[in-house]
Structures are given as structure tokens and as C-alpha cells.
């Protein structure tokens, strides 16, 4: 568990974080700080953000996801956003947002498989 209340688990060189139902400003900032600290200290090569629980992704939350992905990329790690609900995907497209630079996977399992393949592409 982290100070942001968002659990971050370690799976070898992969960090796995499960976002909660809601993503507010304060939680997001604490989580981003904690995650980048862990990427750096653990030497994580990839981060999987499990957003299965997230019911709403508005432009604010979308910005946060992109910022977290950018931060991890600057440190040299890949970020995969996994498990987006289909109403969320439909809504994001209608908002005109497409999470630039963020890789995606159907589920955490898919994300981990994708990351274990040596030839996995680096860009979403």
C-alpha cells in the first residue's frame, strides 16, 4: 500500500497499480509521486495501470493518466493502461481524447503477457 491509498504491487520488473473507483486531484498527485519513486528505486521496466474499477474518465482524469505515462516514460519505463470499461472508451472518444502516448491492453493479464514478449512494441 502507498500513501496515496492506491496499491502498487511488484511483479518482477513490472509494477502493477490498481486505480480505485474515483480519481481525485490529491490522490492522483500522491500516487504519481509514489509511483515514480518506486519505478526509480525498484528499477521497474514497466508499469501496468489497472483501471478496471474506474467508472468515469473525464478530461481531468485523462490528463492525469497521460501525465503518469509521461513521467514513467521519462524514467525509462513503459506504461500500459489495462481494463478500460467500454462505456468509458466510448465517452473518451466523444470527448475527443485518445490518451496519446499511452499503451493499452484489454486486461491486466493481457498487459503482463504483452510486456513479457521481448518483441513487444513500445508505442500505443
Amino acid at each position: 500500500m502507498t500513501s496515496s491509498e492506491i496499491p502498487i504491487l511488484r511483479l518482477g520488473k513490472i509494477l502493477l497499480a490498481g486505480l480505485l473507483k474515483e480519481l481525485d486531484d490529491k490522490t492522483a498527485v500522491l500516487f504519481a509521486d509514489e509511483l515514480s519513486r518506486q519505478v526509480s528505486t525498484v528499477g521497474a521496466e514497466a508499469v501496468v495501470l489497472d483501471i478496471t474499477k474506474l467508472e468515469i474518465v473525464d478530461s481531468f482524469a485523462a490528463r492525469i493518466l497521460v501525465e503518469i505515462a509521461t513521467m514513467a516514460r521519462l524514467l525509462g519505463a513503459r506504461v500500459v493502461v489495462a481494463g478500460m470499461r467500454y462505456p468509458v472508451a466510448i465517452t473518451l472518444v466523444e470527448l475527443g481524447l485518445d490518451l496519446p502516448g499511452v499503451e493499452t491492453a484489454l486486461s491486466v493479464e493481457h498487459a503482463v503477457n504483452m510486456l513479457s514478449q521481448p518483441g513487444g512494441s513500445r508505442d500505443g
Partner: protein
Amino acid sequence: MTDREVMAPGQVSSLQIRAEEDLLAARHAVRAAALEAGFGLVAQTKLITAASELVRNCYVHGGGGELVIERLVPPPRAGLRLTISDDGPGIVDPDAALVDGYSTGHGLGHGLGGAKRLVDEFHLDTGPGRGTTVVITRWVGR
């Protein structure tokens, strides 16, 4: 949660937007009303997301204000109408503000235009010094 029992058809409820926590409360209130009104999962998600954008604008750009949730009953159709209003600085150029990517802050600038696309009816009433009022409506079963 007793949220699901709060609104009977035709009823109006309102919520003050004064602090960061009120954004979450607003979302919960809209979700409860949308469930009660019988919206499907996608329609619900769209309406809550639109509300989230507008309530955040009301708080961030308008300095706070009010959300009014109105349950519309037939005739002509069942639906939900949300009015988000503030007495903030208003928007000097509303047409520009509706364009995707336009933001005077650190936002993505997709909130206003995006919210408009997510609902069936959208009315924006604003001007310099007049505050901002947005009325959005979504009908059930479309």
C-alpha cells in the same frame, strides 16, 4: 448508500459547489439520478462525464456555484436536466471556449465542447462579468 432513493419523478434537487469534495458529491448525485431515471450504462457514463466536466469548470474557472438536477417526466419524454451555474468572471468568447483544445488554464480544453457532444441539448449562457450558466439535457432511451 441511500442516494438511489432521493429523487422522485419531477423532483428537483440542488447541490452547492464550494470545495474539491463537492465535485465527487456532484458526480454521485448525478449517478444516482441517472440510475433512478432508467438510463443505460453508456448513457449514464456520458451524462456523468459531461456533468463532471461542467462542475469542475464551475469550481475551477467560476470560483464555485451550484448544480441543479431536474428529473423530467413525460410528456414529452423521461430525461434528466442539469443546470450548472456560477457568478464567476464569465466567458469572454464562448465560441472559442467550445473549440477542442482551447483552455485558458492548464486543462486539456475539451470540457465544454466535449460535454456538448455527450448530451442531447446544451445551452450556454455567459458573458464577461455575468457568470456562467450551462443547461444540459439527456433523454432516456436514445
